[in-house]
């Protein structure tokens, strides 16, 4: 075989193999990676192993992944298409790595609660309740978000009331605004249960010592305009006067 023939065979082989490669691509181009919206929730065991000792670093990585789930590689997915049960599993898993961080509850309550399928927000409410239980002293804010989501997004007043009572039961020494403790009163008012709403307000007035003028004005407005109880309003103000908690001059 001459050198020219060998060279020709080599060139033809090269073209043939290149052609085969292109044909292979043509036949396999429909095989695409599984672009799942919410990935399967791994076991805590696996996550701890993969964190290589730095739980915080891995927690931030996974939290970032869940923030961008469904919106990666040029995709944009409507929140109604997400599997919220799996998403809730991710939230609980991430809490196991770092329950101190407010990243996951803020992601759940400010972003994922905006789904077009309001019934899915029950998973968010459940998660926020569990998250707040880990440290009620610093996490009461997420209970107030759970009340809001249950009341306005899920429109489940019973659940909202249940969570509102959990919020109101936050230890008294916690520096929490009065509106958070009054939350059950607002839900009772919306349910038309004015007596229960009044009891909440009276309870707060009897059990707490210091109120700002703004807070007292709000309570007065709530009783007068929203509970529409002029007589009760005077009772309350008398009570405040007696306890020296009300100063007209302020």
């Amino acid at each position: 075989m001459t050198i020219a023939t060998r060279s020709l065979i080599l060139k033809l082989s090269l073209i043939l193999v290149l052609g085969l490669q292109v044909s292979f691509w043509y036949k396999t181009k429909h095989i695409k990676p599984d672009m799942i919206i919410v990935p399967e929730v791994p076991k805590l065991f696996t996550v701890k192993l993969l964190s290589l000792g730095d739980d915080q670093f891995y927690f931030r990585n996974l939290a970032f992944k869940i923030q961008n789930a469904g919106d990666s590689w040029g995709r944009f997915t409507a929140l109604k298409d997400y599997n919220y049960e799996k998403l809730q599993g991710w939230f609980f898993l991430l809490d196991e790595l770092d329950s101190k961080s407010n990243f996951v509850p803020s992601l759940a309550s400010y972003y994922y609660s905006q789904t077009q399928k309001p019934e899915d927000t029950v998973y968010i409410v459940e998660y926020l309740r569990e998250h707040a239980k880990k440290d009620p002293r610093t996490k009461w804010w997420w209970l107030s978000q759970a009340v809001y989501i249950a009341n306005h997004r899920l429109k489940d007043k019973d659940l909202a009331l249940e969570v509102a009572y959990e919020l109101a039961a936050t230890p008294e020494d916690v520096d929490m605004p009065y509106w958070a403790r009054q939350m059950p009163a607002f839900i009772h008012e919306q349910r038309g249960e004015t007596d229960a709403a009044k009891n909440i307000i009276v309870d707060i007035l009897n059990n707490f010592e210091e109120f700002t003028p703004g807070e007292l004005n709000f309570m007065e407005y709530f009783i007068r305009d929203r509970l529409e109880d002029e007589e009760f309003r005077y009772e309350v103000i008398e009570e405040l006067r007696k306890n020296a908690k009300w100063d007209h001059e302020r």
Partner: protein
Amino acid sequence: MKAILKYILLTAARDWLFIGLFAALIAACGLSLFLGSTALSEQAAMQLSFIAGTSRLVLVVGMVLFICFHIRRSFENREIEFLISRPISRSSFLFAYFFSFLVLSLLLLIPVMGFIFFLFKPTVLGFFLWSFSVFCELVLISTFAILASLILRSAVSSVLGCFGFYMISRIMGFAVSTIIIPANLNHINLNIALEMTLKGLSSLLPRLDQFGQSKWLIYGDVNPDMLTLIAAQSVIYITLILLMSVYDFNKKQF
């Protein structure tokens, strides 16, 4: 000692270690800052955690690659033979090498520490513990890289050995927690064998999983006992590897 330190630093500069590692660190920090800034909340914590985690990995990988390839090449070029022909004992030569890599680790870590401190202002105790533990981790892995390069004849196998050692050491806490699972839980004798293996393995490997945790930088809630734990583990294990290296190097025939 001073000559070897100068020689190592010159070799590091010649091998573009400083430029290469600083470029990798800048890329890691830039990417971390960008990704962290896209977080819905806690952007600073996200950035800090990404920077702390990635820069630690970049430094470990960089040091291992440099040491393994440097030592193997020095053997192949007979540079080591030339150096030990000078009036210096083999042990002193090895300690000088160790000290040089210790200085190199510190030189590479200082810019990362400065970047984290000035940009994120973590708590002093959290920052100190993180920096100290990452420094100890770098020195420990560098010492292991010296040993691996002395024992193994190929740079690639030394690098792979070091990475394997690093990975296993970083999951050692996990192995230790697996040991406490009762061996007869499933009434399978295999569990006993597994328990014995894990016990043996964990008693010989360092607890690197306790080192360089980015939560110290973010939350600053540091248990002061960690400092003692990290210092004790580093001193014990670095001494152990160094003695093994000296033993092996003294027995080497040239």
